[in-house]
């Protein structure tokens, strides 16, 4: 949490010597608080005050970055409890777990499938972030070869899971030079694990079965110089995980409680109540930084990737597309003009339907300030006047020989007015849902 000007002033020499270029220490402190000045401008500030000020300038939830071969995932650095207060910033990483007791071919196949998985949602290509390899066998050699098998099939960031420092060391050697998330340290092994994290310059997950234990461990580990920590609160059921994650987030944000000011790692097991997707969905909405799924299946991962986009959109800015006249399947001047709004979800529902049907059409996207058809209509941002303006603005009449315009079924009421606004145009009312557009285009147009 940022310090106020007065709090900063108390840490300054208070001599008003003006060497910083400001008339008083207080004036300088105010500029610092407003982030309009640099602390280094004061040559007299003590080392101790410097340390305190730089600690205070750190975000309440540390930003932790996991990298590998061009892939990067940043988590933490969140500032609010509820997305409507501002927004959630760093999307949690979604990882798929494999176990070193699984046969190597299975690991390779599962990882290759998950690694290449890419799905389109409103024009964005969504994918998974990496893999978590778990040393279920307890055997260093088996762990190392499982990690090598994963690495052979994917270049994405890794999480290594073992509580045995010897096993972890073997795993780290298998990908020498990399800095995976080490998962992790507990009350028994933390010194050895912290040493491994230091050697490999890797972030370290810390497991505590109560918040007391967790806070105590992170404080001890920080003293060893390892700063990139991730919290595993140990709760594996839905209800307990929700409570712990909420408590951690509140402590970090509302009380600036440093020992728990780190991103959270959540595990969504296949045996979670309601299934792993439910557990992962909760983790996405409720404060996790890393989410580890037990297995990969497109029908589970796709909904989760979409949920993550939804929860992390900026509540003040709907995702939009550029208003324009779009061409779908190379339309000719004979083909119909379909009208819609520039809300991304709306645009892509319509564009995807028409595109996959193979039928050519012009898609006129009006500027409805990023709202859906009915929302924009209700808000007065999608009416006959605006549609007519778009028809003229994008010179639609020059592109088509047959002046036919299809309205979304939900705004059939606009057709009369639109006929008046656009003399010479044939106004047709399409179906309500985009799914029914191809059939309508085939039969009715």
């Amino acid at each position, binding site marked *: 949490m940022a310090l106020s000007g007065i709090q900063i002033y108390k840490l300054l020499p208070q001599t008003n010597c003006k060497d910083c270029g400001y008339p008083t220490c207080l004036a300088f402190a105010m500029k610092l608080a407003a982030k309009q000045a640099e602390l280094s401008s004061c040559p007299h500030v003590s080392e101790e005050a410097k340390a305190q000020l730089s600690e205070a300038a750190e975000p309440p939830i540390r930003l932790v970055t996991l990298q590998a071969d061009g892939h990067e995932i940043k988590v933490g650095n969140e500032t609010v409890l*509820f*997305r*409507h207060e501002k927004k959630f910033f760093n999307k949690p990483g979604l990882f798929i777990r494999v176990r070193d007791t699984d046969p190597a071919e299975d690991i390779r196949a599962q990882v290759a499938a998950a690694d290449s*998985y*890419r*799905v*389109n*949602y409103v024009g964005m290509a969504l994918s998974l972030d990496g893999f978590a390899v778990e040393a279920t066998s307890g055997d260093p050699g088996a762990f190392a070869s499982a990690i090598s098998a994963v690495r052979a099939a994917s270049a994405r960031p890794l999480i290594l899971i073992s509580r045995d420092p010897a096993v972890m060391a073997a795993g780290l050697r298998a990908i020498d030079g990399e800095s995976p998330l080490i998962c992790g340290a507990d009350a028994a092994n933390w010194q050895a694990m912290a040493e491994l994290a230091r050697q490999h310059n890797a972030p370290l997950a810390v497991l505590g079965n109560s*918040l*007391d234990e967790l*806070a*105590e461990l992170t*404080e001890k580990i920080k003293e060893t110089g390892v700063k990139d920590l991730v919290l595993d609160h140990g*709760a594996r*059921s*839905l*209800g*307990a995980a*929700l*409570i712990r994650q*909420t*408590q951690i987030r*509140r*402590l970090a944000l*509302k*009380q600036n*409680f440093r*020992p*728990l000011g780190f991103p959270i790692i959540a595990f969504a097991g296949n045996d979670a*109540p*309601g*299934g792993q*997707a*439910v557990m992962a*969905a*909760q983790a996405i*909405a*409720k404060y996790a930084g890393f989410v580890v799924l037990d297995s990969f*299946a*497109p*029908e*589970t*991962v*796709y*909904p*989760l990737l*979409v*949920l993550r986009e*939804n*929860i992390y*959109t900026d*509540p003040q800015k709907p995702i939009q597309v550029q208003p324009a006249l779009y061409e779908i399947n190379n339309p000719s001047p004979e083909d119909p003009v379909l009208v819609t709004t520039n809300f991304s*979800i709306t645009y892509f*529902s319509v564009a995807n339907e028409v595109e*996959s049907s193979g039928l050519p059409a012009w898609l006129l996207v009006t500027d409805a300030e990023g709202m*859906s058809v009915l*929302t924009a209509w*209700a808000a007065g941002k999608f009416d006959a006047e605006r549609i007519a303006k778009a028809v003229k603005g994008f010179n639609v009449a020059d592109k088509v020989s047959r002046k036919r315009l299809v309205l979304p079924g939900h705004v059939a009421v606009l057709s009369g007015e639109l006929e008046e606004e656009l003399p010479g145009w044939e106004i047709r009312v399409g179906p309500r*849902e985009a*799914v029914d557009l191809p059939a309508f285009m085939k039969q009715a147009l």
Partner: protein
Amino acid sequence: MPVDIPKDKWPGAVRTITLGATPAEGGTRARTVTVGGEKALPYMHFEAEMPYRPVIALEIKDRRPDDWSPLLLEEWGEAASDPASWAKAAEAAGADLLVLALSLTGADGQPTTPAAAVAAAKAVLAASGLPLIVFGPGQAEADNTLLLAVAEATKGERLALGICEDKNYRTIVAAALANDHLVTARTPMDVNLAKQLNILISDMGLPLDRILMDPTTGALGYGIEYGYSVMERLRLAALQGDAMTQFPMIVTPGFEAWKAKEAKVGQGVPAEWGNWRERAITWETLTAVTLLESGADIVVLRHPESVRRVRAAIDDLMTAPVTA
């Protein structure tokens, strides 16, 4: 290191509302359902006991629907052709209560008559002892005539009648008032609109323990984030003491999710969407669970497997250790 866990202390609480009436209470229901009463954010048991668990309603129709996903019709089979059989099947599938959603027209394409609506409601009440919510077809005039007839024919049952919207609440509220029913008040994802409608309804004299509010939601991928945040804001307002937001919330993730292409159809969709049935159920389940965690008290679902999963989630959320 002992951590001092901060606890929110809220001045307000959500009202407690009971749906359905047993014979002793003037109805015919085998049991009633009580929701609300929250004094903290959802499932924060370490701050305040959550006296009533959120409940799951299954949506059934007065006749075989024309526009439901084939997955749903296949799942319910013949039961979906008859409201009484459907009600029984829904109860067997684990619903806590039922939503009977009236169709605008009968199978013959003619407008649903008040007599037909009453017959369907009566058949459902006879077939199942669960409390019942009845939704009109969603067109002002039809809603008014059908719901009025149903309300009169089921006096004393403490049904919830919906959907009251700003332009169409008077007749429905009057019908509820005269016949000892409840209403559901729906507004399009806006805290102030929700408050306003609740004020209008309570101004008509309907007791406050007979109002449920439906803040409207979108499905996963289709606007869920708006519904999610409005529900969080409404619940925060309720806990902060704003009386006109202190109503239990009902939402319809089943209706919304099954409208989405991801759930509705299995053909002509990208291969990356994976197995249709599992994807559809996950779509509905995730929409529902996400909304439960933002404060929903009643979720209305459509698929029995979603009911099973959402129930497992609620069970676990409700039994989380108080000191977790």
